[in-house]
């Protein structure tokens, strides 16, 4: 009886369980996502090392700019981690972070242009990421397109 129970009853819920685990664990860091993992990884390293070096050398020179660079590094790091982890939860978290990142780039970009005196030294997001070939502004848009696409796939 037990044997038949085991083979009989779980047969119907099993595919469902498989479907849910697949839905929760779909990959975000493969295919085009792999390129995003690379760029987000590079920007995590770039923003983090930049802000660390600047903070150690002379934090007083431009505290706002250096703090913003550090915040950017955290956001990039979290998105990189989410892309590597995959799954629906990570996808949503990454989507929120990409939106925050885009907002950050736009706000800081405008801010640096309107009031340059607030920034004695530039951040990763100064001038909409001009010093980084505008990748900081392109990256969140591509990221969000990919994350939206990944849900449908």
């Amino acid at each position: 009886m037990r044997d038949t129970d085991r083979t009989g009853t779980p047969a119907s819920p099993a595919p469902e369980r498989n479907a849910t685990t697949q839905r929760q664990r779909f990959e975000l860091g493969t295919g085009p996502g792999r390129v995003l993992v690379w760029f987000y990884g590079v920007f995590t390293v770039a923003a983090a090392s930049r802000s660390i070096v600047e903070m150690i050398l002379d934090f007083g020179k431009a505290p706002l700019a250096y703090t913003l660079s550090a915040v950017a590094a955290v956001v990039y790091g979290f998105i990189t981690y989410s892309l590597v982890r995959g799954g629906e939860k990570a996808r949503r978290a990454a989507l929120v972070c990409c939106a925050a990142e885009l907002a950050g780039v736009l706000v800081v970009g405008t801010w640096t242009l309107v009031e340059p005196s607030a920034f004695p030294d530039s951040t990763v997001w100064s001038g909409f990421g001009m010093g980084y070939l505008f990748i900081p502004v392109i990256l969140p848009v591509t990221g969000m397109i990919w994350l939206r696409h990944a849900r449908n796939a």
Partner: protein
Amino acid sequence: MLDALTVAVAVTALALAAWCGFAAYRDQPTKDWHFIGMAVVSVLALAQLLVGIVQLARGERPDQGMTIFIAYLIGAFASVPAAGFLSLSERTRWGSVTVAAGAVVLAVLEVRLYDIWGN
């Protein structure tokens, strides 16, 4: 710093980017030959790292500070191997795109290294 070496790394990096970009265009993953290409570029970047350290040890100083210079040297050395590593487990055209992107990043880092060292 050795300008010839900087130019050599930048040029080979761009060539690698074009080569891997072409592979991506033809819908191909990175292959053995691409990895040999990556190795060549990485060896040049390693040589640059060593030359940079030797020059620092001899008392020459970069214009924009030693910490930043060393950070960029390490970044330049690591970028192509890291991208190659990512492409190892991505056996599609997107692995090739990643390596192409990595090589472009290296070329940009070379430009920055040139600025940081100054004249």
